């Protein structure tokens, strides 16, 4: 908790009130305890209070039950990551207490359910222990039938008291959440909340108050990465898609299935992953960029069809919500190990576009960018999100939807003549016309996976194959040249440059801030366009002695992570090295800094 020097005066033994700029609260329990709901309420409250927020959660991959955590970091200033160490740990069970005490900073507060947790005397000197009979008191507040239900809302009351949160706003959030349900449910929830709020935590030495946040322009919206991605696709004008359930992608398909009909569109649940990508390609062919998506194993299954999309030059958006791999791997953990399959998956030379959003807000905007790149360049575009970004909640400035929303209804007006694979098109960029379009010449095109001539008819001509391969490559080279040069976070020259992609932007930037505050020369650059790469990276790398690619995947046979290997192949620069890890968890800021230090110390690897 970053405290200010100003401390409110205490009087008459009342707890001290400290002004804080941010707090990290970790809630540990089981997956059915509704701890995600507490986290969700806190995140939403932060959004409405113009504060920044970021959450982090782990869920068991078991079918029902199992330990689960939800961490919320709320701040009056910029919040870049969900935080390394918690200020407060709320523990429902002994295993929650024992398993997560390590994530609490020394001197932090552990708030535990005294009905389930037996404090360890050794730990009581390092952490401030506050026991509350959460389960018992919840039953007392809302009656004996509720059992474990409601203790999450009771705990929300406790937290609200501890952090002097806005009760009216929280009540409103709780009410919104239970709207449409049985009235008694809302009544019980509010009763539990107030019981928690009015509980006297006698031995609590202090309570906290957030400092006022910097005034934000307009309103904030609060959502997770999968929601932002889905809404971004809708804003981009996508009205058709198909998918097959797999964690953590399923949320996207569920949301699109529910929402698209309102816009006259459909999202179809198919029999398998291959049918999903095929149906989406059919939708795209029919005239409007469609979407499919999956996670690891499903992406593997889709690769043949993605190759067809490249060959037939069909626009398509493929969302890959990465999880731990290979095979079934770690379905509910995070990893950035699908970069290789996204860029290279499939047989033959099949260049496609790969982009990676950096935070929840970026999921919204990059979904739109993906759709537009797919449309313009007639190519499949993979959006590499991951489990961490998909489930974490952030608040961001509400987009100007009237301005942003696009209409991409296909133009079916007649054309004189049409060559979907014209070799005279500038930079090899062509668009196909949708079926239903009358072609005056009477010559109709075929969308095909066979090597073809300009109309799409099959050819075995060596010359045409060379020309078409080059066409499919050239358009992506043109895209690459048109991309903006990434901006360096921190000074453009220095000792260490941290290079990241995807969801790690927050912790990497926080690492830069922390290192610079300690006097170290560290900057970072985040690559959002993975394939093609943006221009200017070689000049950025030239400004540093060390270039470390920070990514959540394995160092591989030759010592570099997946982006690291790509950058080395592209720039042949021996100072590019990797900081990788495969524990299935997001990077902690401390971890990045320690690894950067040890990698600098280790010097350049000798081969």
């Amino acid at each position, binding site marked *: 908790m970053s405290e200010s020097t100003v401390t409110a005066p205490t009087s008459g033994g009342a707890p001290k009130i400290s002004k804080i700029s941010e707090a990290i609260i970790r809630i540990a329990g089981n997956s059915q305890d509704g701890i995600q709901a507490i986290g969700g309420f806190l995140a939403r409250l932060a959004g409405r209070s113009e504060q920044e927020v970021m959450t982090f959660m782990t869920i068991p991959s078991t079918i029902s039950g199992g330990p689960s955590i939800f961490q919320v970091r709320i701040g009056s200033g910029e919040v870049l990551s969900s935080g390394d160490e918690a200020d407060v740990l709320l523990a429902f069970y002994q295993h929650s207490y024992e398993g997560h005490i390590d994530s609490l900073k020394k001197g932090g507060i552990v708030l535990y359910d005294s009905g389930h947790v037996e404090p360890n005397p050794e730990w009581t000197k390092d952490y401030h222990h506050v026991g509350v009979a959460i389960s018992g008191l919840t039953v007392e507040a809302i009656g004996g039938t509720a059992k474990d239900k409601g203790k999450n809302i009771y705990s929300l009351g406790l937290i609200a008291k501890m952090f002097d949160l806005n009760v009216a706003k929280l009540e409103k959030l709780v009410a919104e959440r239970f709207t449409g349900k049985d009235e008694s449910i809302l009544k019980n929830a509010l009763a539990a909340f107030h019981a928690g709020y009015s509980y006297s935590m006698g031995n609590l030495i202090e309570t906290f108050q957030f400092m006022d946040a910097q005034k934000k322009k307009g309103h904030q919206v609060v959502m997770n990465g999968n929601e932002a991605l889905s809404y971004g696709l809708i804003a981009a004008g996508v009205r058709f898609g198909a998918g097959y359930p797999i964690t953590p992608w399923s949320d996207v398909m569920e949301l699109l299935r529910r929402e698209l009909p*309102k*816009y006259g569109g459909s999202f*179809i649940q198919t029999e398998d992953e291959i049918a999903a990508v095929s149906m989406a390609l059919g939708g795209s062919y029919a005239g409007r960029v469609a979407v499919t998506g999956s996670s690891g194993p499903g992406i593997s299954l889709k690769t043949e069809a993605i190759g067809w999309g490249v060959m037939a030059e069909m626009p398509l958006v493929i969302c890959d919500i990465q999880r731990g791999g290979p095979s079934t791997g770690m379905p509910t953990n995070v990893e950035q190990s699908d970069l290789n399959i996204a860029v290279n998956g499939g047989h033959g030379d099949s260049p496609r576009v790969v982009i990676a959003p950096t935070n929840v807000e970026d999921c919204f905007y990059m979904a739109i960018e993906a759709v537009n790149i797919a449309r313009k360049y007639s190519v499949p575009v993979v959006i590499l999100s991951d489990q961490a970004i998909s489930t974490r909640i952030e608040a961001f400035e*509400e987009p100007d*939807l009237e301005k942003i929303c696009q209409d991409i209804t296909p133009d079916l007006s007649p054309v004189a003549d049409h060559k979907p694979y014209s070799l005279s098109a500038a930079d090899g960029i062509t668009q196909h016309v949708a079926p*239903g379009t009358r072609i005056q010449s009477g010559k109709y095109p*075929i969308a095909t996976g066979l090597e073809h001539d300009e109309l799409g008819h*099959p050819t075995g001509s060596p010359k045409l194959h060379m020309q078409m391969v080059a066409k499919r490559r050239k358009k992506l080279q043109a895209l690459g040249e048109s991309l903006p040069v990434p901006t360096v976070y921190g000074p453009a020259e220095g000792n260490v440059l941290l290079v990241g992609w995807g969801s790690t932007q927050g912790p990497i930037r926080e690492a830069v801030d922390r290192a610079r505050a300690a006097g170290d020369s560290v900057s970072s650059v985040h690559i959002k366009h993975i394939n093609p790469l943006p221009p200017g990276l070689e000049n950025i790398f030239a400004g540093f002695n060390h270039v470390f690619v920070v990514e959540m995947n394995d160092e591989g046979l030759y010592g570099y992570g997946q982006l690291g290997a790509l950058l080395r192949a592209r720039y042949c620069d021996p100072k590019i090295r990797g900081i990788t890890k495969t524990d299935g968890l997001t990077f902690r800021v401390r971890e990045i800094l320690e690894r950067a230090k040890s990698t600098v110390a280790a010097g350049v690897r000798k081969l």
Partner: protein
Amino acid sequence: MSNSLTEIPARGGNLAVATLPESERKGLTKKEIAADHPTWCPGCGDFSVLALYFKLIEKRKMVHEKITTVAGIGCSSRFPYFVQAHGVHYIHGRALPFASGISLSRPDLHVFVFGGDGDAFSIGGNHVNHTARKNIKMTYVIMDNFVYGLTKKQTSPTSPIGFKSKTDIWGAVDQPINPMKQLISAGATFVARTTATNPNHLLQMMEAAMDHDGFSVIECLSECVEFYEGAFDAANPRKGGVFNQVPADHDVTDEVAAYKLASDPFPGHFGIFYKVNRATKNANEAKINATLQEKVKGLKDWQILQKSFERLK
């Protein structure tokens, strides 16, 4: 994001295309419908299917741009190249989900899928089941030759036991799939059987299939003269066989009767085995859309999205 990155050049205005009302447009001639010269072997049954498809287009006065011909991989799947219309040559076994994507997003188009027994009953088997179950509106013609022809004589899922192929040099041992049974049990709402050697019957089946509101499937025996010559002689009166029509008293809405009819040994029966009306996926989705759109009536798309965002504050 800069505009130059994603701006799509305009098509260059409306063209002076004759804007005759649909009703006054003349039907297409065979010359206008035919595209590439078919690459099939001389004598291949597929020629007949193509010729009758042209006839269907002519007879039903379909216009170029409303026809979408989709195929997977195989000899028969070369079909779209030979038809002067919007066409798709997709990957092996997956033509049905691709065509479903077209059908579900474009109710204005006639979607026809052509393919072989490998596409339908081997690599793409599960897609047949699910397209049938969902009853997605399109017509699917399975040109069944009981052999893998494009890859030069391997056993196919419909090869009869004892058929000698390069992958079963001693004769096929696996129970072949019975297409009619498979389709009926999968829930296809129009299931018919015909043969390339009986053009009138083939056209009749195609017309009935096209008129069916739902997933209509035709198994058309189409001989591979190169790798399974004489496979269907028993169904061809000109070769001493018999062409048994589905009995006149067969109730096409009786699933069990259709299944029994399909149990008869080769050459079996020809005609419509099963035909029922069940809501299509297209109609079901449209119904969901109508209900949900009622709630956002009068709102522009961005306003609908705005409503969702209000709940995320």
